[in-house]
């Protein structure tokens, strides 16, 4: 085999191998592009989901605020009722004392 044949053979093999590797590179780039598209679509879906969750969260916070006010109002009402009961009891005790004093001692003596 002479050198020209060897060179021709080497060049031919190099051409075939290079063509194959170029195909491999192209396939890799295509796969990466597809993955990129898929990830981009997934990220958009997740962004939409986050936006929906944020809207729900705002609604929940507003409802929570209303409920907190209601609960606070009830606690306030309860405190007032308790105070009224206290005053009523003290008033009744004072009235009994006054009545006793008017009638000249305990049991109208």
């Amino acid at each position: 085999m002479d050198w020209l044949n060897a060179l021709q053979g080497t060049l031919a093999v190099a051409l075939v191998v290079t063509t194959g590797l170029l195909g491999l590179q192209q396939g890799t780039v295509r796969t990466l592009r597809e993955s990129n598209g898929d990830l981009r679509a997934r990220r958009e879906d997740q962004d939409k989901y986050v936006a929906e969750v944020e809207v729900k969260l705002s609604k929940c916070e507003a409802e929570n605020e209303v409920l907190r006010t209601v609960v606070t109002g009830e606690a306030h009402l309860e405190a007032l009722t308790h105070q009224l009961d206290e005053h009523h009891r003290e008033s009744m005790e004072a009235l009994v004392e006054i009545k006793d004093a008017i009638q000249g001692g305990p049991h109208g003596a």
Partner: protein
Amino acid sequence: MPLDRDHVTIASRLMLPTYAAFCGVYGIVFILDPQGRLGRAASLEAARWAMDLWIWGALWLVLAAVMLAALRTHTRDRYLAALYICRASWWAWAVVCEAAVFFNDDVTFLAGSLGVFVGIACTASIRSLRTGEA
């Protein structure tokens, strides 16, 4: 994803070892050229002009060895690289065999069909391996 039976299609379980065996057999026959038949084949005139038949054989034998090693070590990327080069070599083979039609009236018009078919089969397997179908 490893290259094993659980991570390839049913078709690939058959085809991946077949590519290695096919290239290996062609490689051995082209290197040894039993009885000098390949050297006398009219359809291989252009192929012999492109490069000596034993070089074609050596290329396929090396590819077969790489594919077998990749199958043993379950390395998908290595097998893919060999398959891409295998595809390129068989398309080149199709071109040189078909070119012989223009140089020799005894060569059939179908001379390049084997190379085209093997190239298409390689393309199908490449797409299957790339997608990682299981």
